[in-house]
């Protein structure tokens, strides 16, 4: 569906993207991650055809987005990071306007607006003017507009910025459903738990370069670090190679944690008399990404 091939883009002396390549298949969600200034929005703009790459190519269904016909362009749904809505118009008018731009007839425009509204649950807001909506409602309408043309490729640039927990869940559920229906999705975000919920493939950008590209499950499989926590009834015993914190002992382990715990039990059976619980914690997505690009964890490069 989408093919990004060796794309580089510069603004004056600043190189925003360097040799970035990846593909997105129908029904796949690709989470584009990276700190501020990593090149996520530039990449989105290139994919949608707002910018032309200096080097490399972007194709959607084999066609360069900057050379697409109007009907081909309708196959791309785009919700930029910045909210783009007409404040004095109603929600319905906003949706119908963008549906109308596809060249559809009157009846089809109404149906397209209603269908898109249903996905992001904004149909109850139809008669309200945008200026009267809350931030989360505006964000949902903004995302719904990207769906009016029933796109085959959907690009959502930070669709959950500034929204409450409920709205976030609704947006994620809607995106998951769209992918299940065969839509290819590029989803840029700073919120890593969303990526886990979406079970998205991760493309991590850093300083304009792609530093990670792979499914979450594979990333976890390839990282065999774990944190094993033993909780005791009372004060934890002092054991070599462990970190004691009150009633717990913590061990950072690399390798199979199950085997390690079995061996640990055998060799410390006496000290583990008062053991209450054992918890094996796999690294979070944040831990995985920081391990791959260490300065992501520093200020300015933060991920949430």
């Amino acid at each position: 569906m989408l093919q990004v091939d060796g794309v580089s883009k510069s603004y004056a002396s600043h190189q925003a993207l360097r040799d970035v390549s990846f593909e997105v298949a129908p029904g796949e969600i690709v989470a584009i991650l990276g700190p501020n200034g990593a090149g996520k929005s530039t990449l989105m703009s290139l994919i949608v055809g707002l910018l032309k790459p200096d080097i490399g190519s972007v194709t959607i269904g084999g066609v360069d987005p900057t050379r697409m016909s109007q009907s081909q362009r309708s196959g791309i749904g785009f919700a930029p990071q910045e909210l783009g809505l007409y404040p004095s118009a109603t929600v319905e008018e906003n949706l119908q306007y963008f549906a109308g731009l596809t060249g559809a007839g009157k009846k089809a425009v109404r149906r397209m607006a209603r269908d898109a509204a249903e996905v992001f649950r904004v149909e109850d807001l139809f008669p309200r003017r945008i200026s009267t909506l809350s931030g989360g409602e505006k964000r949902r309408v903004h995302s719904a507009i990207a769906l009016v043309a029933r796109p085959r490729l959907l690009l959502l640039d930070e669709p959950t910025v500034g929204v409450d927990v409920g709205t976030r869940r609704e947006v994620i559920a809607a995106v998951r459903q769209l992918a299940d229906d065969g839509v290819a999705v590029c989803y840029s975000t700073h919120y890593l738990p969303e990526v886990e919920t979406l079970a998205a493939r991760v493309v991590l950008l850093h300083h304009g370069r792609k530093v990670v590209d792979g499914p979450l499950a594979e990333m976890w499989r390839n990282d065999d670090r774990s944190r094993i926590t033993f909780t005791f009834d009372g004060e934890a015993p002092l054991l070599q190679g462990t970190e004691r914190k009150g009633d717990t002992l913590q061990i950072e382990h690399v390798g199979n944690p199950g085997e390690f715990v079995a061996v640990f039990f055998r060799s410390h059976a006496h000290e583990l008399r008062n053991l209450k619980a054992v918890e094996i914690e796999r690294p979070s997505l944040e831990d995985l990404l920081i391990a791959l690009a260490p300065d992501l964890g520093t200020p300015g490069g933060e991920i949430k």
Partner: protein
Amino acid sequence: MIRLRSLRAVVRHELAIARDHTIDFVIMFFIPIVVMAFFKPAAGIILRAQGMPLASGAEQVVPGMAVMFGLFVVGLVCFSAYREHGYATWDRLRVSGPGPTQIMLTKALIPLGIILLQLTALTIFGRAFLGLRVHGSVIAVASVIGSTAICYVCIGLALSAFCRSSQQVSILANLLNVLMGMLGGAFLPTGVLPKWAQHLAPATPTYWAMQGLRPQFLAGSTEQGAWIRATCVLLAIATVTLAAWRLRFRPEERKQHW
């Protein structure tokens, strides 16, 4: 057909936005009416002193104020474009519609309609209440009004491409308004302006609009055929400014709206 329907969506949307600004357009109609009524006696004195004994003054103030206040459309064209940047809808329009050039041209149809309506309504008002009579050709009046409207809208498009912010547009549009109004003979007949101003006058579209319109309203004017030349010059200015817009228009350029 698809393109036509999508452009119709742009027109409908722009009309809906224009409806929210009805009061602005009402002001655009009323201010020139007040100024016309105020200056008509003085304009009559000037025209009679210039050898037009039957002139009432309406022959100068009605077309003059109409073409001068019509220049407000230049700002309307620019703001209609810059509004998309202010609402952050421009990028979306660029990728979801029939293309930025077509969208801009279609958006310009609404200001074109407004200026045509304004020029026509003010002429009809002049005829109904200020004693304006068409002694020449109605076709000539319609032709000059039409070409003036097209010319102003094209100037607006060019200005929208060259300026970077609404503030720049506002300053330049006001400056154009005053300069073109004064120099072009919309305020006072060019014959009473200083010689240097009379030399500069033909460089303004208002001059050509007045050259085409005024003889149609003056009894016994020998220049009633001037409307053809005026129409041609106005359309030539429109073509040049439209070409300048097309050359300078960069859809990816960010404009600052207030």
